[in-house]
């Protein structure tokens, strides 16, 4: 008999009602949340050079996305043809052979890219957390089923699957593209989370919740998932980078609809005439989208590497000024794992 299913529903006796004299108010809860998830990580993040640089670069892209609301759309013949960068003010980054403003092309590609990153990252980590925690916590037949399912999804090659699906469905909405790209990316992450949950579920506070008759979802949300947040956030950044690489690659190949602005399309247009560009010094048409892609990927790598430290409890307590006794333990932070396998 599973203890989780013997939860008392009647309300005549419950552990929660007995503790009502020390009930936390919503205000306190919000303040706790602010302390735990915004203030302390913020302090540590600001102390880590990697997250500082990564955050700064990412801010540039957000500014670009906002600027795209006000800046003109790229169309042909809006500027003189083949302008080099930094020659005139109306098209600071130059123009293409068909007279499109390169800056406008770069800027207008940003909002949909950010939407793709966000939805892809949320989808991949969200599915991975649900499947990984349930499989790891429940064990037995459910674990076996979910693990086999993730194994199968993991074994299907990501990019070709996405290519085939993109051709069949021809998605245009960036949010859908983001989900499509991570359609099986979550599987590897779910496996990793499962193995972490296997150790977490043995903790005494989890056992305490279980004996008190808390429901499985409650245990997962209150006891298990908060412990996984650091890992999940690091992998959110990794998933986001995967979305950038894959989506730009798909746009470059022309598999996703070519009617929108994207750095991959710029890259494709420039590369098709690369032979002609070399002699004329017009390589900026190739370099500018490359820089745009690399910038956002760099920001995401730096964030994922830095966040690894942000959630290391020792570093965090020390920097946020929580405890004096741990201040001397500096040796541990360098061993923060660098799992950055692509």
């Amino acid at each position, binding site marked *: 008999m*599973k203890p989780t299913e013997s939860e008392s529903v009647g309300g005549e006796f419950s552990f929660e009602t007995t503790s009502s004299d020390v009930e936390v108010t919503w205000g306190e809860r919000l303040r706790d949340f602010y302390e735990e998830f915004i203030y302390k990580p913020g302090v540590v993040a600001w102390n880590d050079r990697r997250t500082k640089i990564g955050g700064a670069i990412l801010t540039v892209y957000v500014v670009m996305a906002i600027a795209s609301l006000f800046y003109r759309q790229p169309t042909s013949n809006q500027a003189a043809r083949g302008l080099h960068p930094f020659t005139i003010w109306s098209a600071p980054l130059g123009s293409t052979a068909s007279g499109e403003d390169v800056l406008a092309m770069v800027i207008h590609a940003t909002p949909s890219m950010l939407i793709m990153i966000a939805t892809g990252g949320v989808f991949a980590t969200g599915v991975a957390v649900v499947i990984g925690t349930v499989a790891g916590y429940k064990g037995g037949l459910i674990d076996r089923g979910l693990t086999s399912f993730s194994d199968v999804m993991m*074994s299907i090659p990501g990019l*070709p699957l996405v290519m085939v699906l993109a051709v069949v469905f021809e998605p245009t909405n960036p949010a859908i593209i983001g989900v499509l790209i991570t359609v099986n990316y979550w599987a590897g992450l779910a496996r990793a989370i499962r193995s972490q949950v296997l150790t977490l579920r043995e903790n005494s506070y989890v056992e305490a919740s279980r004996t008190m008759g808390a429901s499985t979802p409650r245990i997962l949300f209150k006891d298990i998932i908060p412990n996984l947040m650091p890992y999940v956030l690091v992998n959110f950044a990794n998933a986001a980078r995967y979305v950038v690489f894959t989506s730009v690659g798909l746009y470059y190949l022309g598999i996703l609809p070519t009617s929108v602005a994207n750095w991959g399309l710029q890259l494709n247009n420039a590369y098709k005439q690369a032979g002609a560009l070399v002699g004329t010094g017009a390589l900026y048409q190739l370099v500018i989208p490359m820089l745009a892609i690399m910038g956002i990927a760099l920001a995401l790598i730096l964030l994922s590497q830095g966040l690894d430290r942000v959630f290391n409890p020792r570093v965090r307590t020390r920097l946020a000024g929580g405890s004096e006794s741990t201040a001397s333990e500096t040796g541990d932070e360098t061993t923060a794992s660098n799992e950055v396998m692509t």
Partner: protein
Amino acid sequence: MNYYVERTIRALLTVWLVITLTFGMIRLLPGGPLVQLRAELSRQGYSASRINALIENYQNVQPDQPLYVQYFDYVTSLLQGDLGQSITNPNSVASIIGDALPWTMFIMITSVILIFAIAIVWGAVMAYREGSTFDMASSSVSILLGSMPFYVLAIGLVVLFSYKFQILPARYRTSPGVEAGLSVKFVVDALRHAALPIASLVITGAGLQALAMRGNSISVLGEDYVRVARLRGLSDRRISTRYVARNAILPMYTGFLTLIGFYFGGSPILEEVFTYPGIGYYLFQALENRDYPLMMGIFLVITIALVLSVYIADLTYGKIDPRIKSGESSEAY
């Protein structure tokens, strides 16, 4: 032994599921491949019975049969190695793949071996000099290289080495007119054509792997058994090769085999940039021309390559690392 049987069954199950998935995608999607193909053929003025015969030839399904018969036909012909007939190419899907696959494998396997050789040495040196200027600079360089998608570097290399300096060829597997065979001329020519694709994978891939190796080595260096080995007065050389290197490399082994599969998946972009007719190039061509039999055939082959490499990794990992136990917890809450 039980573990091996279970693992084999799981690998076969995955391949079967992917076969079923491809069948489902070809057959069941509204407005999917078969519907489009039929519309295309009837536009070209074929009669209804002729269209059915053509579709049977292309895809090994008889559209007028009930669904389970079609499925059975599809699976049995796949098991016989018959992947159908390409629509745009006069050759059968199986012969196209047979011609292209060795070239892709050559590029991918060479690249991954190079990536790991570089990553292990570089990462170990970084870990050994942890905190030094070399470590800082190397970490920064690895992150910078890792932020570059391989196709972006590939484009850069083509522009630089093929167009600007004109040292290395920009496209194809070999120069036209060079006969395949074990002659020096052929080998040198093939290597020259493979140099840029391999370089773009290795340069962008090695950095992040080196960082992973660095992390592994640093955590091994902190282990008790390394301290004990030092106290026992073992030589530095013995400690670094027997104690640190072995334990730091072990976790990377699975990554090694799965990375081959991962790069196989990335081959369409790489081979399109270099116009290198491997399976990725044909997959891209098939997608562009809506050549569904070829597309699904290559998709299956890439999947099998990936399943196989993960399978080998799982089976051999226990042999390499004796600590791995395959026992699974059956405790349920």
